[in-house]
């Protein structure tokens, strides 16, 4: 199993551009999450999904959108990128909810200039 994979690894965007961060898991997990980690800080939940077709907002959803059309994929869309969105983005998945282990992808390092 590849686990959780994310693309791209690195990206530089200009202010106002848009992009989609890809996340795929091959563990047949129901739950998927998107976090952002600012330098030297903890993880903040952006959006999460409890299954295909179901998404919900986390702590910091503004400026982002998600969709979950399949169990495997959970893309994160940035519209109108801003410098405040410069961060490392981690996708994670778990079989169940908060009492299950979360498996993290390798992350996408995004810089907005």
């Amino acid at each position: 199993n590849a686990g959780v994979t994310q693309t791209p690894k690195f990206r530089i965007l200009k202010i106002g551009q848009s992009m989609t961060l890809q996340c795929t898991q091959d563990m047949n997990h129901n739950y998927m999450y998107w976090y952002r980690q600012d330098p030297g800080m903890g993880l903040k939940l952006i959006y999460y999904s409890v299954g295909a077709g179901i998404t919900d907002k986390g702590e910091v959803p503004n400026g982002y959108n998600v969709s979950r059309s399949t169990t495997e994929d959970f893309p994160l869309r940035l519209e109108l990128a801003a410098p405040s969105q410069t961060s490392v983005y981690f996708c994670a998945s778990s079989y169940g909810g908060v009492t299950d282990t979360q498996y993290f992808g390798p992350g996408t390092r995004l810089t907005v200039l």
Partner: protein
Amino acid sequence: GQQVMQIPQYQHVQEGEDFTTYCNSSTTLSNIQWYKQRPGGHPVFLIQLVKSGEVKKQKRLTFQFGEAKKNSSLHITATQTTDVGTYFCAGGTNNAGNMLTFGGGTRLMVKP
């Protein structure tokens, strides 16, 4: 909303010294998880505690969950250079749905 605080933010130790990080929640937790993130890496699950007063050990690592289920600690005995990284606690509550709230992490640096 729920807040999870970790102290200290940074800790430098000499190899062989002990290390402890503390995690405190503003609300009672249903469970707490600990993760380790190596420099440049991603968080990796270490352990979960669910019972009041629970203590679990993994080799040189000892994890505790407070009696009131509002605090937790991770203690490393005789640190090694392989222990370098950032340790995060993450708390779940019955009111927060399917979200874990992560603490800010404690970054451990070990001098050989």
